[in-house]
């Protein structure tokens, strides 16, 4: 068995009808798994950027990349190696938890409190996926009621 690797791939596609379905369909049809997916238009262009986090052995990853290239609306596929990776998380806590402690925890992970209502506090952090995992573990002591992870975005360092 070949080693299973985690990979982050960015795909630049023409911003057209059903392009996202083409990409996710490609993964689904071949039984490949998408761990996380982030999509947004690229400013001042008719392109969109998708960041896909996936897992598989080397041959599977190679096939994924070739198949992504093969889609007609695909402009570019970037296989990230030396990259800056960030993921965003929104987390909702009951109002009776310690505001100061939550604030301190969030600051340690590049974030803070973004909303306070009569019932809940909402926090936001943006950090590397591994650190996001740590944050979620650490935040458990404040009894979060809802967690929304945003998926990875990545940029080559050079």
């Amino acid at each position: 068995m070949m080693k299973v690797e985690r990979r982050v791939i960015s795909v630049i596609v023409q911003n057209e009808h059903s392009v996202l379905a083409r990409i996710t369909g490609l993964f689904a049809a071949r039984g490949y798994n998408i761990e996380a997916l982030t999509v947004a238009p690229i400013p001042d262009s008719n392109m969109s950027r998708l960041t896909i986090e996936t897992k598989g052995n080397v041959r599977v990853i190679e096939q994924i990349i070739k198949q992504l290239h093969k889609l007609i609306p695909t402009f570019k596929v970037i296989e990230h190696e030396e990259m800056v990776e960030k993921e965003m998380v929104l987390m909702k806590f009951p109002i009776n938890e310690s505001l100061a402690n939550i604030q301190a925890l969030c600051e340690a992970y590049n974030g803070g409190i973004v909303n306070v209502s009569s019932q809940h506090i909402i926090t936001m952090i943006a950090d590397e996926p591994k650190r996001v995992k740590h944050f979620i573990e650490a935040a458990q002591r404040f009894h979060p009621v809802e967690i929304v992870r945003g998926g990875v975005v990545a940029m080559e360092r050079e």
Partner: protein
Amino acid sequence: MEMTGAQMVIEAMKLEGVDTVFGYPGGAIMNVYDELYKQNDFKHILTRHEQAAVHAAEGYARATGKVGVAFVTSGPGFTNAVTGLATAYMDSIPLVVISGQVPITLIGTDAFQEIDATGISRSCTKHNYLVRSAKELPHILKEAFYLANSGRPGPVHVDIPKDVTAELAKFEYPTHVEIPTYKPTTKGNVRQIKKAAEAICNAKRPVFYLGGGIIHSGSADLVREFVAATQIPAVETLMARGVLDHDDPLLLGMVGMHGSYQANMAMSEADLMIALGPRFDDRVTGKLSEFGKHAKIIHVDIDPSSIGKLVDVDYPIVGDLKEVLDVMIPKVKECVDPDKYQAWREILKRYNEIHPLTYEDSDKVLKPQWVIERVGQLLGDKAVISTDVGQHQMWTAQFYPFSFPRQFITSGGLGTMGFGFPAAMGVKRARPDMISVNFTGDGSILMNIQELVTAVESRLPVINIILNNHYLGMVRQWQTFFYDKRYAETDLSFQPDFVRLAEACGGIGYRVETKEEFDEALKDAVDKGVVAMIDVIVDRDENVLPMVPSGGTLYNMMLEYKD
């Protein structure tokens, strides 16, 4: 100039030089058919089932290399066409299939005859479009033809809502296509080609592994030149039959599950495989870990995702085969010594002497292989041969003396029963100068038998030769070999009277049980030039051999079956 969407569709067909459209009208595509009614620039052939329309368009495309075109309506019209799209997709056949769709205002409302057609076709087309305004139509249609027949060819589906076919817009048909995201690599990497050429000259036991890409890229002549110059033996995949002339002494026959002994042994013992446009299908490779175990592999393909998909390749070359061969052949000619492979050729010749591709003929019952060989003797290169799928298909691939590319029209990748007859109609339409023969089985022919009506009405004289063993033969063979003869639902003893069926539709039928009767029937069918069904009663228990059991190794073929 302003036109309705429907007028644009018709106009685009003319501008693309389409001479035939196969199709079936219905509610959502009626505006297009109304415009079609008003023109005489191209012919529409009305099949009796949408699946057959697409297969007929495929037959046309496979016989000519031009884009085949089919029109179908929304909903069931489109879903019937899907098998045809998938068949073309698997074999890289250029098609443009245009379907009607419910009006834009009704899309997503579960309207009458609505289906998410582009959602369905996404996974079995090279590309697809849902047209959202008549303004988009000219460039979408232009792109569809371009995409279908460039790079790795394939089917393109254009879904047009009914209100778009009625909408007026300016018609300016683009003269060329610019898709910034689509740039197929056609020129192979020169350094890599050079390395591959050196590998060929240094090999001791090289073999050409010829695939369907040779036919699609129109490089069969170059391949013939390459083989002749190097004197390296060659195997052909199912899709490459006809690349080399059947009597070329360097042709080892078909490779794979039902390949010849010498072809499969050549692949197993080679030290270099020169793979030109094949896709390493599991029906060819058998057990992957044992495939080409002693060989370095050169793989030339226009589709990068085909290279290294299943086996590791030592010399990957992405490019159009024709352009790559233009560079590679002179480089190989510089260094090659054809005499060097003499010993290797002798070994393979010896393999062929030990286990030639053969069968035991009989005077008591017609053997299917005899029938195919006989058609080959009588019609040879005057016929284009289509098949359905099953034992008859493999026997045809093994025993028909193919002598030119595009002479063999068959559903390889998808293995679509019901393909042969409509495809043969498309062949006849594309090549009226040729005799169009479809070898079929008693199982396969019933899957699109309604096309007898189309063939008669449209004067497309196809000769269907049913190799009738009263079985779903290939499944029966597997049940014999691997399921202790439990013939679950493969006994087709109950059959229609094929002769009367042919006659009921206005064709001519023959029932044949002896060699003399067969010769007479075939001669009569050819002479009369009408739609014919020759129902040939053959040996019920004949098997296709050699056989590499699924997942087995090429060098461990079953060469005979003993009860």
